[in-house]
C-alpha cells in the first residue's frame, strides 16, 4: 500500500513540471524550435529572444532546442496532434518534408518586406519559393570551402589546388606514413552527402533531377565526381567510413590530415585545437573539374518557417523574424556561430556588429572567400529555380553517402555506385 501510494504521489508530483504543448502553449506566446544545440548557439538565440521580449511585444518568444536527428519524427508527431511550434528553423529539404506534413504558412509578405528593406541573396531565398509563394524566411547561409594546413603544404612544396587533378596530386603528395593528404567523411550521414555534392557542383553535376522531378543522377558528370571521391579516399584516414563532421576537422587541426572540405565552423576553434598561429589555416574555393568544371559549392540557406495556424500569431512571428534581420540585431544573430553563419542580406557582409567579431577579423580573408563562394552555391533539388517536393526523402536517407559507402566499403566502381544511387533515389520518391 505504501509502495503504491508512493508511486502515485511520485507520478503526480512529476506531472506538473511541463508546459502545455507548443502550439497550445499559451495563446500569448510564440514557441520557436531550432536545432542549433551547441551551448554558444543556444545562449545567443536565447539572448536575442530576451532582447526581443524586452521590447514588450504582444507575443513574447520562447526558444526550445531540438535535435536534427529527432526533429523529423518529432514534428510529424506534433503535426498529427496539432502541437507544432509557431516558428520552426529549417533548411530547404527539411522544409519540403514539413510542408508535406500539411504544415507551413506562406511568409511571402515577410520575405518581400525584407527584400525591400535590406535586399536578400538569391541563393538564400530561392530554395524556399514554390507556387509563387515563399515558405520560409532565410536567416543565414552556410557554404563549403577547401581548408588546408599552410605549414604542411609549405613543407611538402605543394600549392593550394584549384582543379580536381591538382587536388588528387596534392592529396597524394601530402600523404605520408603518419599523415593523410585529405580527410573526407565516408559515413552514412549528411556530412558525406554535402562534401560529395560540392564536388558534383564543381564538376557540372549540380542538377540531378529532370524537369518533371524524376531522378537523373546517372550522368557522366556525376560518375566523374564519384570517381574523384573514390580516388581521394585512398589518401584519407583508414577510418573514414565512420567520419561525419567532427572527425575531419579534428584530423586537420591535429595535423593528421593536411586538407579537408567543410564549412566555416573550421575558423573558430583552429588556433586553440591546433596550437598554431591562425595564419596556418588556409582556405580556397572547392577545386573544379579540369574539363567542364565551374566554381561552386553546396550552399545551405537556413530559414524559419511559420507553422502556427493562428493568423495573429503568424503576424507576430513575421514581426519577430523581421526584427532578427534588423541591423542592430542581425550581427549578434550571425555571431551565434561566427564564421559558420553567413549573412543573407545584401548589406549583411558589411555589418560592423558582425565584422568586428574576433573570429571574423582574424580570418577576414577566408570570410570574404566564403562570401564569394556563396554566390555560386547550389543545393540539390533547388538548382536553377527547381523545387523538388520529394527531395527530403532523398536527403533524409543519405543516398549520396550510401553510394560513397558502396564504393568505399563494398568496392563498387563509380559507374556502379551512380547506377545504384539512381535506382535507390527513384524508388524512394516513386
Amino acid at each position, binding site marked *: *500500500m505504501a*509502495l*503504491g501510494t*508512493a*508511486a502515485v504521489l511520485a*507520478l*503526480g508530483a*512529476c*506531472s506538473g*513540471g*511541463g*508546459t*502545455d*504543448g*507548443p502550439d497550445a502553449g499559451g495563446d500569448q506566446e510564440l*514557441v520557436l524550435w531550432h*536545432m*542549433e*544545440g*551547441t*551551448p*554558444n*548557439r*543556444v*545562449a545567443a538565440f536565447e539572448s536575442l529572444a530576451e532582447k526581443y521580449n524586452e521590447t514588450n511585444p504582444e507575443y513574447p518568444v520562447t526558444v*526550445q*532546442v531540438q*535535435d*536534427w536527428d*529527432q526533429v523529423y*519524427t*518529432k514534428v510529424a*508527431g*506534433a503535426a*498529427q*496532434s*496539432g*502541437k507544432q*511550434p509557431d516558428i520552426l528553423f529549417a533548411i530547404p529539404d527539411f522544409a519540403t518534408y514539413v510542408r508535406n506534413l500539411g504544415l507551413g504558412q506562406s511568409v511571402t509578405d515577410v520575405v518581400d518586406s525584407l527584400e525591400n528593406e535590406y535586399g536578400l541573396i538569391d541563393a538564400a531565398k530561392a530554395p524556399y519559393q514554390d507556387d509563387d509563394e515563399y515558405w520560409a524566411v532565410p536567416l543565414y547561409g552556410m557554404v563549403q570551402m577547401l581548408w588546408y594546413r599552410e605549414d604542411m603544404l609549405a613543407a611538402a612544396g605543394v600549392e593550394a589546388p584549384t582543379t580536381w587533378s591538382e587536388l588528387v596530386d596534392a592529396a597524394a603528395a601530402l600523404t605520408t606514413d*603518419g599523415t593523410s593528404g585529405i580527410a573526407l567523411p565516408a559515413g552514412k550521414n549528411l556530412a558525406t552527402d554535402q562534401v560529395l555534392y560540392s564536388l558534383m557542383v564543381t564538376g557540372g553535376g549540380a542538377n540531378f533531377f529532370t524537369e518533371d522531378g524524376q531522378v537523373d543522377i546517372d550522368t557522366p558528370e556525376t560518375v566523374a565526381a564519384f570517381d574523384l571521391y573514390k580516388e581521394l579516399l585512398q589518401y584519407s584516414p583508414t577510418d573514414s567510413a565512420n567520419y561525419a*563532421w*567532427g572527425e575531419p*576537422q*579534428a*584530423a586537420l*587541426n*591535429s*595535423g*593528421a590530415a593536411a586538407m579537408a572540405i*567543410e*564549412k566555416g*565552423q573550421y575558423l*573558430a*576553434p583552429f588556433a*586553440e*585545437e*591546433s*596550437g598554431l598561429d591562425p595564419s596556418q589555416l588556409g582556405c580556397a574555393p572547392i577545386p573544379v573539374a579540369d574539363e567542364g568544371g565551374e566554381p561552386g559549392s553546396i550552399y545551405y540557406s537556413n530559414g524559419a518557417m511559420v507553422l502556427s495556424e493562428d493568423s495573429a500569431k503568424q503576424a507576430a512571428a513575421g514581426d519577430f523574424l523581421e526584427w532578427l534581420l534588423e541591423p542592430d540585431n542581425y550581427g549578434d544573430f550571425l555571431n551565434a*556561430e561566427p564564421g*559558420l553563419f553567413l549573412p543573407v542580406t545584401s548589406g549583411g557582409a558589411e555589418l560592423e556588429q558582425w565584422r568586428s567579431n574576433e573570429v571574423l577579423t582574424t580570418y577576414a580573408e577566408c570570410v570574404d572567400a566564403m562570401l564569394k563562394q556563396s554566390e555560386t552555391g547550389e543545393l540539390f533539388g533547388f538548382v536553377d529555380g527547381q523545387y523538388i517536393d520529394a527531395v527530403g526523402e532523398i536527403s533524409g536517407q543519405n543516398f549520396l553517402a550510401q553510394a560513397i559507402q558502396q564504393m568505399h566499403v563494398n568496392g563498387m566502381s563509380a559507374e556502379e555506385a551512380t547506377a545504384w544511387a539512381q535506382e535507390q533515389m527513384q524508388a524512394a520518391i516513386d
Partner: protein
Amino acid sequence: MTSLTASRRSGRTLRHRLGAVPRVVAWIVLSVIVLGPLYWITISAFKGREEIIRSTPTFWPETFTLSNFEQLFMSTEYPVFLTNSIIVAVTTTVVTVFVSLAAAYGLYRLKVPGSGKIAGIVLLSYMIPGTLLIVPLYRTLAGLELIDTHAGIVLVNVAFTAPFCTWLLRGFIFAVPREIDEAAAIDGAGPTRTMLQIVLPLLLPGIATVAVYSFVFSWTEFVFASQFIVSDALQTLPIGLSAIIGQYTVNWGLVMAGTLFTLLPTVVLFLFVGRYFVGGLITGATK
C-alpha cells in the same frame, strides 16, 4: 618423507598457480576491454582541446585542465538535465516496481484464470520495437495533455519496463514455497497480508533487480524522451548531452566531461547493488 611431502605440495601449488594463469589473463583482458573506454573518457575529460585531438594519444593528461567541467556546469544546463533524469528515473523505478510486483504476484502466485496466456501476452508486448510506436504514442499523450511532461515519459517508460520486470520476478516468486502461503492462511492471514508481510520480504532481491533494471533503462532512454519532451527545462541527460555535441562542431572535451558525469550515477549505483542485479537476472531467467 617430509621433504617428499613438501615437494608434492610445492608441485600442487605450482600446478594450481599455472592453472590460474588463463583465468587471470582472461580477467585482465576483460578488464581492459570493459574499463578501457571508461578510462579513456575519464582522462580525456581532463585534457585541453589541442591534446585531446592529438594524433599521438597521451595516456595521461599533459595539460591537466578542469575547463571542460567548468564549461559543462557553466555553459550548459547540466544540473537541470541531471535533476530531470533523477526525477524520471526514480519515478519510473517506483512505479515499475509497484506495477510489476502486483502483476507478477497475480499471474504467478494467485490462481487467476488464463494467467498463463496473460503472462505470454505481457512478455510479447515487451518485444514490440518502441520506434514504431512514436506517432501513436505522441497522439495518445497529446490527448492526455501529457506531451512535454515528465509524467508522460514515466508512463511510456513503465509501459516498456513493467512487462520485462513482471517476467523477471517470475523466478523469484516461484522460489518462495507455496507452503508459506498455506501456513499463513492457517494462522489467519488474508491474501494481502500474506503478500505484504510474508512473501514480499522474501522477494527483496528480486525487487532490487527490477529496480536497478528500470532505473538504468530510464536513465539511458533516449528515443521517447527526445520525442515527447520539447521544453529545454524538462530535458533529460541523454537528450541534453546529445544537443551539446551539435551539428558541424564537436567540442570533444565537453562531450567527454558530459559523458563522465552521466555515467557516474549508474556506476555508483552498480557499485552498491550490482551483484544483486547480476544474481537477480540469473535467478529470474533460470527458475
